[in-house]
């Protein structure tokens, strides 16, 4: 009898067979799925390198081994749809239009990061008018919270009769939160066009799923909310796409919430500092050797889909060049001005004043660089400069 709790994801008990939307994907789209997965992995590897050079401050979170789950699911959305990622959904963010340079600037605390240095890692978004925004809503750290928020986002779609769908990711751990429960229940009963993707990667930090819930699989929770549940092999990017597309189409038809469970595995720790000492011996190595989502997809691309090896290699080279260029661009950016910390807590007043013991350091920060429509969605191409009037810095 094992004395240590067994971790790891289990095989899907009821993988979907019926729907195969991936058969309608073009050749370019099939290769694009690989591109996004490769870009995710390469960008994260670059972030690790920068982290070791202490150019990345704060934590670093890898999604190694989960690229198919993030990329395949988000690929089922349209631009006008809104997706809310978690920390291991870099792949989904890239598919939705986040750029490597934005990600790098965020991690490196640059003043012109999408959040102006106010939030770290990939906690950023771009949501609003579907014509001008890319449609992803950055998370906050408390897990489960994005589910009620996305219930509200999709409720607004329903109230306005808009043909838009929402998709929110949660991990196995987040399904234990009250926020998850209340959010999915509210979305379900209000028939919001919301897809809830549970990424079952086997662990919540050090907690295996066996300590998270007695439910046999997370898809079993769907019945409690009165919604359909779909389960798929999260490391098979086309199976992920198929399952999510079915759920997205259902939402778009007005049939409400679907819970999608994607079975995958977290090959790195919760964050870079986590040495995964709690993982049973050999488990990580086994998943790396036998069930890598990129290896599996390359085998299908070059096998059943007839792509040439040099087409794959060309994608790899393109990805490396993009990540190199993005790194150079991000490294060239400066850090935020300290007084920028006081700007924009409210619409009115536009800024806080420095406290009495900081007076005399510099004058008021102007916010004149903001567009006249005021504070709203960060525009990736907008250059931000904070001017300090007077001051002795």
């Amino acid at each position, binding site marked *: 009898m094992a004395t240590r709790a067994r971790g790891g994801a289990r095989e899907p008990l009821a993988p979907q067979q019926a729907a195969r939307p991936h058969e309608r994907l073009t050749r370019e789209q099939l290769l694009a799925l690989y591109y996004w997965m490769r870009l995710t992995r390469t960008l994260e590897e670059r972030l690790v390198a920068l982290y070791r050079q202490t150019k990345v401050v704060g934590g670093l979170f890898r999604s190694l081994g989960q690229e198919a789950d993030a990329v395949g699911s988000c690929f089922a959305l349209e631009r006008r749809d809104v997706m809310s990622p978690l920390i291991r959904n870099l792949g989904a963010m890239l598919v939705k239009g986040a750029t490597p340079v934005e990600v790098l600037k965020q991690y490196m605390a640059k003043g012109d990061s999408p959040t102006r240095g106010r939030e770290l890692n990939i*906690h950023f978004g771009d949501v609003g008018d579907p014509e001008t925004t890319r449609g992803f809503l950055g998370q906050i750290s*408390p897990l489960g*919270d994005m589910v009620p*928020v996305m*219930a*509200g986002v999709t409720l607004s779609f329903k109230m306005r009769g808009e043909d838009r769908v929402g998709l929110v990711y949660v991990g196995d751990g987040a399904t234990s939160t009250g926020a998850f429960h209340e959010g999915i229940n509210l979305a379900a009963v209000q028939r919001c066009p919301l897809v809830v993707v549970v990424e079952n990667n086997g662990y919540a930090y050090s907690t295996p799923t066996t300590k998270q819930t007695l439910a046999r699989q997370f898809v079993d929770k769907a019945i409690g909310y009165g919604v359909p549940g779909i389960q798929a092999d999260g490391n098979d990017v086309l199976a992920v796409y198929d399952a999510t597309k079915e759920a997205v189409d259902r939402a778009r038809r007005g049939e409400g919430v679907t819970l999608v469970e994607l079975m995958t595995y977290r090959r790195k720790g919760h964050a870079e500092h986590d040495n995964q000492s709690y993982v049973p011996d050999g488990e990580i190595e086994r998943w790396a050797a036998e069930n890598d989502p990129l290896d599996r997809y390359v085998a299908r691309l070059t096998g059943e889909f007839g792509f040439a090896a040099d087409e794959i290699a060309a994608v790899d080279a393109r990805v490396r060049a993009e990540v190199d260029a993005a790194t150079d661009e991000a490294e060239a950016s400066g850090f935020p001005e300290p007084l920028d910390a006081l700007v924009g*807590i409210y619409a009115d*007043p536009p800024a806080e004043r420095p406290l009495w013991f900081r007076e005399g350091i510099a004058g008021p920060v102007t916010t004149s660089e903001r567009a006249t429509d005021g504070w709203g969605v*960060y525009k990736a191409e907008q250059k931000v400069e904070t001017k300090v009037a007077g001051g002795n810095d």
Partner: protein
Amino acid sequence: MAVATQPERLTTAGTGQEITYLEAIREALLEEMARDRDVFLIGEDIGAYGGAFKVTDGLLARFGEQRVIDSPISEIGIVGAAAGAAHMGMRPVVEMQFIDFIANAYDMLTNYVATARYRAFLPCPMVVRGPSGGYVRGGPFHSQNPEAGFVHTPGLKVVYPATAEDAKGLMKAAIRDDDCVLFFEHKYLYRRIKGVMPAGDHVVPIGKARIAREGTDVTIITYAATVWKALEAAERLAAEDGLSVEVIDLRTLAPLDDETIVASVKKTNRALVVHEDTRTGGLAGEICARINESCFEWLDAPVLRVTAHDVPLPYAPALEDFVLPQTADIVLAARRLAAY
């Protein structure tokens, strides 16, 4: 024959008719929902039942179930959903059936809503409102004043009117504000306080206190139900002690109207802060600190405070009346200030 369930008239503004504090809140909701299609309501029992206190009575019939949503018991869910809808340009008003239950949504309000504009440039133009306060024998979970936990959170605004006119005007302001406003309604005042609504579009600015009574000898700074106790105390002090007491009704708790507070303290030189919230960590400590920082030299006495005792609020009338501040307490404190 169908019984009309809609209010016959949208508003009493300018008619001279006196309405209650509760009706004033309802009137504000009616006017704003009629004016702006993006305003909608969500909460428990607010639609078919009209709300536990009937604040939203008649609104479902007038605006339909898409704009007056009966929610599950999910304070986390409805506050979060309001934020999401607000990001997309809607203006939700969320009801906490009793403001005590706002505690369930503390994470969503302080971690998500309050920070959204700052960290993500995402506005949350939403209102969270609910019946607050005691003196009603409601016990520990139906009588709270939880404002302190939110006043200290950057990114939220908090208002707490004492009059019917301010209840209407501040609700309209709260709905129109581009940030999240917590709107505390005192349940003891719901049907006891009445007022005549000003004509036209009556909006009270957030962040501006009201001089409820002018005076020269002592300043009382307070809000919500204790405004009325302070006014009672001021009458007694004028009659019995010849003392001229100025009563400031803060109306907005965050942001505080420092200007009005300072001007009054500089005038009277003696300040008393009164609130129904508990002593430790209550807003009185914050106000005392601000007075200390900005007009210490004008003080002829320490700043005193009259607050609830630091106990969970008990139910039995004898117990509740002991724990909560009463008019006699305010009179005693003002006399002590005057004699210092």
